[in-house]
């Protein structure tokens, strides 16, 4: 190895060995860091439990995909790619930074195994890495300072702009890159080595070229200064991370490891408490900060403030008082304030509702899942919303507009309070040749068609039930409908925080479904499907009618006529609970595309897992939100922009909301909306 002309470990500083300082900086830095982290962990230790140690292999895969491979970053291409550069730069430069710290006390320290070719290769890679990080950071800074992407803006009610913090951190990173390169470059210059072409155009290369020819003593000074700056910046940065959005540098690995493994489901009221024990639980849901689970608190710490969740949030888009990003930021600020670095945690716990969150903010969420789909560090929001709502329901804080349907659900099993005995009245309109069997008449079949409330009772949506029955019949499916003993699936009752009412509906339905002796269930409502699949226990397999249609088309049981009017352009709207929450994107498209002569376009950028919620289903139909615009209107406009005349969906709530939105948008006669089953039913070959 080449003898190095100077080294921070042997240098003198103001008549003292610099080694003393370079031992002190890491020592103080690490003690401070350990203290800060211990304080940050304080609220997590008082939080509700959150079992996260099951299914470890899946968790490791998630870490590899979402954390290491930065899977979700390119969904926002420019920022995503730049982040990937910085992220991998950090990973590569980690070894170098540690080496530098030790070089301050151990003269000529090299990691074991890095003495030979591997070390030389690493040196080349890290020179490019630090240069790439520097360039990325510079672009990010220009973007932040001058282009100011809208999603970073902080609305006034949420406090001050976060740009200064972002720029400060970018400055710290740039300082680290420059000082490391200056340290290396000054050393190369002093060694008089011809700079290898392998590192051409890197920062190190630039420093070595610029500094070559200077006197050794000058170079030693530059080298020592660069070292000191790097050392100080490094430990300052480390201790600064847990004070803001850059905490994610530390927490994201853990946050991704512990993130939710499943979509569509809702966390129980309390982990470790069975449904039967719910009566003994003193308080439901989240009322104070400490009622959150530790994982949910870790979510708050991990928020990168990137604004992607809120950028995709339909509630935020239409001006409802909800921005998921600030659900996290406000809770993080609360944690920092109430668990200070010094002194005891503040005793004056304030209720979250009325404290940092408003009632309307929490009711505004449609649980569409767009935020969770987007979050690059696996933060979840739906469970938090549901937990906060459980707390509000427990305290009686339920908007009047929701109390009536909830009461009707309790008494009649449907939100309109319609008579139970009329639940199967829609079957009268199915048409000749199709006999709908009813469990209430003692009939059974292999397949149960679970209709749910809106499709059973709403005049318009009954057409979906009738079309579904005709298609099932045409596809030779032997099916039965429960009738009066079927209750609302309770899907949105649960998501609106009324757990006990949900439990009651679930019990009644489970009993009715068991009594039907069906071996599989088919539904047309994705909400009901999600409830039966992810909220109920021990149910037979549940299939959405679109999956069944796609299958019947494939095996030739359903044959479709060409479209009579081929002049119209169709588009498919992915219902949140069919697509994002249950991953069914292709079956409905296959079914639509199977109609000869049908022209279909995608709402590019707003389809599949980026579908824009229509406004929400279940109890959301009754909620009267504060908003500037209806979500459905935005959706209709997106369809319009895509060049569509007909929106096809596969959910009765989407149909309701979009049908209303077409009227509100004044597009009646120009746009129409259909359920997939209506479209298919109209084209059946008899």
């Amino acid at each position, binding site marked *: 190895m080449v003898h190095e002309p100077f080294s921070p470990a042997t240098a003198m500083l103001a008549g003292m060995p610099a080694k003393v300082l370079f031992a002190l900086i890491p020592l103080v830095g690490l003690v401070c860091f350990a203290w800060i982290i211990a304080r940050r962990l304080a609220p997590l230790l008082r939080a509700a439990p959150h079992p996260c140690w099951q299914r470890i292999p899946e968790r490791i895969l998630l870490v590899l995909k979402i954390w290491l491979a930065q899977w979700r970053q390119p969904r926002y291409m420019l920022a995503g790619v730049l982040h990937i550069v910085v992220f991998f730069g950090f990973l590569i430069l980690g070894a170098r930074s540690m080496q530098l710290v030790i070089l301050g006390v151990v003269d000529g320290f090299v990691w074991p195994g890095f003495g030979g070719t591997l070390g030389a290769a690493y040196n080349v890679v890290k020179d490019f890495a630090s240069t790439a990080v520097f360039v990325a950071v510079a672009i990010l800074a220009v973007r932040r300072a001058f282009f100011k992407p809208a999603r970073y803006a902080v609305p006034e009610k949420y406090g001050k702009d976060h740009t200064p913090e972002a720029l400060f951190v970018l400055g710290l990173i740039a300082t680290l890159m420059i000082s490391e390169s200056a340290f290396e470059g000054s050393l190369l210059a002093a060694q008089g080595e011809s700079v290898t072409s392998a590192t051409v155009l890197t920062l190190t290369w630039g420093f070595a070229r610029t500094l070559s020819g200077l006197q050794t003593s000058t170079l030693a000074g530059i080298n020592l200064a660069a070292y000191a700056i790097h050392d100080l910046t490094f430990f300052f940065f480390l201790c600064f991370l847990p004070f803001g959005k850059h905490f994610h540098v530390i927490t994201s690995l853990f946050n991704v490891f512990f993130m939710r493994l499943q979509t569509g489901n809702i966390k129980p009221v309390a982990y470790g408490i069975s449904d039967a024990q719910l009566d003994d639980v003193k308080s439901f849901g989240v009322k104070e900060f400490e009622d959150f689970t530790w994982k949910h608190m870790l979510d708050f710490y991990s928020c990168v403030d990137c604004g992607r969740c809120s950028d995709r949030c339909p509630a935020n888009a239409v001006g409802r008082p909800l921005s998921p990003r600030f659900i996290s930021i406000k809770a993080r600020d609360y944690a920092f304030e109430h668990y200070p670095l010094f002194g005891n945690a503040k005793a004056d716990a304030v209720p979250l509702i009325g404290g940092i969150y408003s009632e309307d903010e929490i009711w505004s969420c449609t649980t569409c899942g767009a935020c969770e789909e987007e979050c690059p560090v696996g933060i979840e929001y739906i469970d938090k919303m549901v937990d906060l709502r459980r707390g509000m329901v427990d305290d009686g804080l339920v908007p009047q507009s929701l109390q009536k349907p909830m009461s009707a659900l309790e008494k009649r099993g449907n939100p309109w309070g319609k008579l139970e005995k009329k639940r199967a009245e829609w079957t009268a309109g199915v048409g000749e040749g199709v006999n709908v069997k009813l469990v209430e008449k003692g009939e059974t079949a292999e397949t149960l068609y679970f209709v749910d409330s809106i499709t059973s009772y709403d005049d318009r949506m009954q057409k979906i039930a009738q079309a579904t029955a005709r298609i099932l019949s045409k596809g030779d499916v032997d099916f039965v409908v429960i009738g009066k003993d079927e209750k609302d699936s309770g899907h949105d009752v649960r998501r609106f925080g009324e757990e006990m009412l949900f439990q*009651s509906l679930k019990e009644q339905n489970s009993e009715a479904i068991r009594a039907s002796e069906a071996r599989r269930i088919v539904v047309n409502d994705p909400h009901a499907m999600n409830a039966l699949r992810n909220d109920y226990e021990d149910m037979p397999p549940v299939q959405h009618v679109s999956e069944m249609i796609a299958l019947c088309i494939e095996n030739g049981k359903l044959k479709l006529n060409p479209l009579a009017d081929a002049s119209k352009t169709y588009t498919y709207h992915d219902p949140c609970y069919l697509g994002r929450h249950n991953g069914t994107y292709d079956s409905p498209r296959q079914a639509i595309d199977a109609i000869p002569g049908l022209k279909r376009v995608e709402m590019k950028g707003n389809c599949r897992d980026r579908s824009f919620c229509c406004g929400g289903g279940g109890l959301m139909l009754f909620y009267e939100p504060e908003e500037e615009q209806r979500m459905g209107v935005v959706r209709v406009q997106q369809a319009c922009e895509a060049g569509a005349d007909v929106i096809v969906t596969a959910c009765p709530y989407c149909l309701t909301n979009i049908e209303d939105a077409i009227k509100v948008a004044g597009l009646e006669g120009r746009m129409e909306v259909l359920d997939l089953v209506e479209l298919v039913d109209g084209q059946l070959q008899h």
Partner: protein
Amino acid sequence: MEILVCVKRVPDAAENEIVVGAGGADIKREDLVYSVNEWDNYAVEEAVQIVEREGGNVTIVSMGDSEAEEVVRREMAMGAAQGLLLTDAAFDGSDGLGIATILAAAARKGEYDLILTGALADDGAGQVGGMLAALLDWPYASVVNKIETKDGKSLRIGREIEGGTQEISDIETPCVLSIQTGINEPRYVGIRGIRKVASIEIPILDAGALGLDAAAVGAAGANVRRIDYFVPQLGASAEMLEGSIEELAGKLVDLLKAKGGIR
């Protein structure tokens, strides 16, 4: 403050299809679901809020059969410590004065500073509150939509009067107030809330326990008897306005003015 709130179990108009029964003097009751009279729910919420603010107790009272217990319990779950159920076969068929007499007897058994009733109930008569006050010889105010507690001896109350105007008065306690909807936002009570108060015993008082002469109440004592129910006939047609949007708006404003809808 000790507050008594009178509540009634009624068929829920939103959750039933109301059909006149064969006899014509009542509705078909087989498939009905019942809940608390909506106005009473606001009265209970108001009482609970006053007690949360000032201290004291809320007692819920209902005259009805054993099924009314569920309604009493649901209202207790909003934050009332006690409930009373006034049940006797002799109470059946009571007219407004009969109900007021029974409630007054129950009120005399306690020491209340304030009695709240709903402004009206399913029969739309809106008479029990006033009669109850008269029987007790207490001051009374109807359709109250605002209550401020003052010095403990009187209340400052707001009443809704014609045309959306509000009248503010002071009223001495003890008094009876009939409560208008909209005075507050009643809290939600779910299955869980009711289960929390499931173990509280609700005393059941009959005519004897209330010191009432059974002949003075119920159908026997009633001075008003219901003769007939009928569904009004649908009008033959609606009036369709025609013209441009501006003309339509003008005609609509004229019509609304003529019918007293706007001034």
